[in-house]
């Protein structure tokens, strides 16, 4: 009989990579069926409960660590002890010193006085103050960390603006500066396009789609999703755009994000019009419409890339867009022999990809439930329980506090794929695999394994549709990743928009 135990380690903070490595070590112990280490946030307690752990008696706050193990009762205590021991010297993290790396900002600047940018990736509650120090040192900042209060974001960005510096983020996972990718970035070519994006995987998708069309990007400035909200006022977005407009090497400007607050959008478009550079605006699902050449307004990511590529290649953007939408129409023929009954369940690692898929699906098959919905009435009461057509963004804070982002580890998402496959009301399971630096070395492998298991139980009742966001030069190799999924019986599409449409046509 399997028993379980949850141990609370009070006031213990560890980064999510350490927690994952220790959990893996525990899982390899004989007699241990399941092990997880997570910070005791409300969301993580909920996830543990959904996994069958009894959490009602747990006395823990979000600064406490939960070590949860299930297995043979005789080894549970030893597993907890092993976890505590491993946390002192995590596996895979060498305690012996390697190459010398400065540990402080001042130390780093003494060794690299010409540096003009800092990338901050630490727990959100400390990140804002570190960003402040970097600005004081005259550095641009890429703030990868999330969970930074919005008041702090506003004060940082105002301070940066006064100093003529950029604060990319918080929650800025991707950027490209002079062709060099920062954070989760794809190995795409350098070229004449400059991007500003308030959407991380939106940036990656456009970057990748441009590369597929033979067009490179010189700079891609991430702003963090909140930048274009009314409270922040698009400070970084506007500054980034102005910088690209002034840059003589940039021939085409691309803007990406969910629709900004109206006043912010108006300001951004005014700056763009003043710059007189060819531009593709990809505010996904935005209300603004009507091209004003050389300014083209798009509603989807691949469309934005197709238009921008045409602009860069001196071709007609309207024709490029038309051809793309014709190709989407042909997906209906592809879907005909794949028809299934039931709902779509989308499991996303990329937030913007999830958002775009909802937008497309809503237009084709009706409203979609989500933990990050298009409209508030479609919000899932419980992110772990689907209803109707559902698309879940596993990159949302509720899933990433004290846990690896799904682009770095899809284990949790793969488990959901298995459980969704057992739901008789499901007809299509749709998911993404985002590639690039910093991402899991084999996301397709993680998902394919789950698909193979699920197919053994569900047979051919469910169609699996995926999109691999990446290029062959990425560490994982897009073609290789695609092949892994196809061999597992997954239909792999060429873009997120295409995958979402195909899923809809299969059940529609």
């Amino acid at each position, binding site marked *: 009989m399997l028993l379980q135990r949850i141990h609370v380690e009070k006031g213990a903070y560890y980064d999510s990579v350490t927690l994952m490595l220790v959990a893996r070590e525990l899982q390899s112990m004989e007699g241990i069926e399941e092990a997880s280490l997570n910070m005791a946030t409300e969301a993580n307690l909920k996830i543990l409960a959904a996994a069958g752990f009894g959490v009602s008696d747990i006395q823990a706050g979000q600064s406490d660590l939960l070590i949860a193990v299930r297995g043979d009762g005789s080894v549970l205590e030893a597993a907890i002890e092993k976890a505590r021991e491993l946390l002192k010297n995590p596996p895979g993290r060498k305690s012996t*010193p390697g190459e*010398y790396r400065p540990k402080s900002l001042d*130390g780093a600047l*003494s*060794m690299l006085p010409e540096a003009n940018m800092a990338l901050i990736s630490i727990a959100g509650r400390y990140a804002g103050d570190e960003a402040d120090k970097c600005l004081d040192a005259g550095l641009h900042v890429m703030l990868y960390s999330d969970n930074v209060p919005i008041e702090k974001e506003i004060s940082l960005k105002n301070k940066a603006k006064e100093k003529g510096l950029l604060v990319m983020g918080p929650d800025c996972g991707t950027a490209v500066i002079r062709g060099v990718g920062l954070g989760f970035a794809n190995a795409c070519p350098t070229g004449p396009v400059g991007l500003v994006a308030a959407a991380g995987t939106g940036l990656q998708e456009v970057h990748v789609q441009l590369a597929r069309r033979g067009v490179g990007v010189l700079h891609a400035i991430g702003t963090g999703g909140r930048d274009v909200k009314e409270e922040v006022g698009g400070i970084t977005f506007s500054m980034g755009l102005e910088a690209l407009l002034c840059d003589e090497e940039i021939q085409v400007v691309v803007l990406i994000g969910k629709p900004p607050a109206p006043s912010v959008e108006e300001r951004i478009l005014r700056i763009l019009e003043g710059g007189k550079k060819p531009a593709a605006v990809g505010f996904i699902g935005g209300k603004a419409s009507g091209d004003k050449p050389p300014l083209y307004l798009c509603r989807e990511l691949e469309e934005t890339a197709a238009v921008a590529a045409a602009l860069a290649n001196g071709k007609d953007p309207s024709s490029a867009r038309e051809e793309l939408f014709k190709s989407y129409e042909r997906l209906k023929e592809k879907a005909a022999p794949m028809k299934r009954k039931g709902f779509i369940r989308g499991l996303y690692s990329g937030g913007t990809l999830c958002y775009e898929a909802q937008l497309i699906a809503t237009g084709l098959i009706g409203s979609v439930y989500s933990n990050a919905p298009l409209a508030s009435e479609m919000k899932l009461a419980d992110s772990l329980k689907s209803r109707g057509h559902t698309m879940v963004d596993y990159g949302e804070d509720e899933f990433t506090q004290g846990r690896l982002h799904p682009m770095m580890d899809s284990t949790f998402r793969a488990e959901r794929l298995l459980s969704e496959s057992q739901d008789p009301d499901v007809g299509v399971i749709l998911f993404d695999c985002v590639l690039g630096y910093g991402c899991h070395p084999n996301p397709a492998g993680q998902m394919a394994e789950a698909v193979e298991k699920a197919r053994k139980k569900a047979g051919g009742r469910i169609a699996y549709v995926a999109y691999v966001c990446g290029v062959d030069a990425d560490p994982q190799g897009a073609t290789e990743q695609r092949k892994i999924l196809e061999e597992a019986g997954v239909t792999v599409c060429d873009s997120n928009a295409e995958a979402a449409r195909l899923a809809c046509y299969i059940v529609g």
Partner: protein
Amino acid sequence: MSFIGRSSDWQMAPLRLVVVERHKSVINLRSRAGRRYSVVTKGEDMGPRSILSKRLPDWSMGEEVMVFAEALPVCYDPEIPKTPPSRRWRPLWFEWLDFLAEPPLDVVGKELAKGDLSSVAGLGPGLTPAGDDLLAGYMTATKLRGETVPAQIFPKMDTTTWLSFDILRDAFAGLVWRRIKDLCDALAGEGVSLLEESLTSCLAMGHTSGRAYLAGMALGFEA
């Protein structure tokens, strides 16, 4: 013999030595006067009273050997340089103090917090106790600043291991290992890559020795 060169302080007269330690690339020998002598196969392991050899001699533990080094060219001078460190690197050595807040060196850090530098002698983990490495680093930094090492911080012989005590004697006399000497040279200059290389090389000294030595140097620079 496959000896290539010697350090400048190797005594010229033939020496009768006893093999006391044998490692992968180092043999440590003890003289009748109780000093350490070494035969090493890597240039970066050269230190005071060392011979560089193509391969380690086939000597057994406890064996008494005669070493003739008078014909060998000098390939290393263990005396620390006379140039003090550039103030440019001050923020960098400040962060070396953080090593004392992390396990396993925190035991030394806690003892230091009580205020007495000499009390760390023989304390902590490592083949050479980390507290001794810290003291050696402190002495090196003090010398590098052109000042005299206060005699009261020098530990009594019975507080630590033979090898460690010998290292402290050398540090007190201003003699250091090549990795430390390279670091001293790099700190006196402005080259980032040289400094990076020498710091990496120092960190590779033993399990904790490099970090403890660096922390000691930081304390010495700030004394």
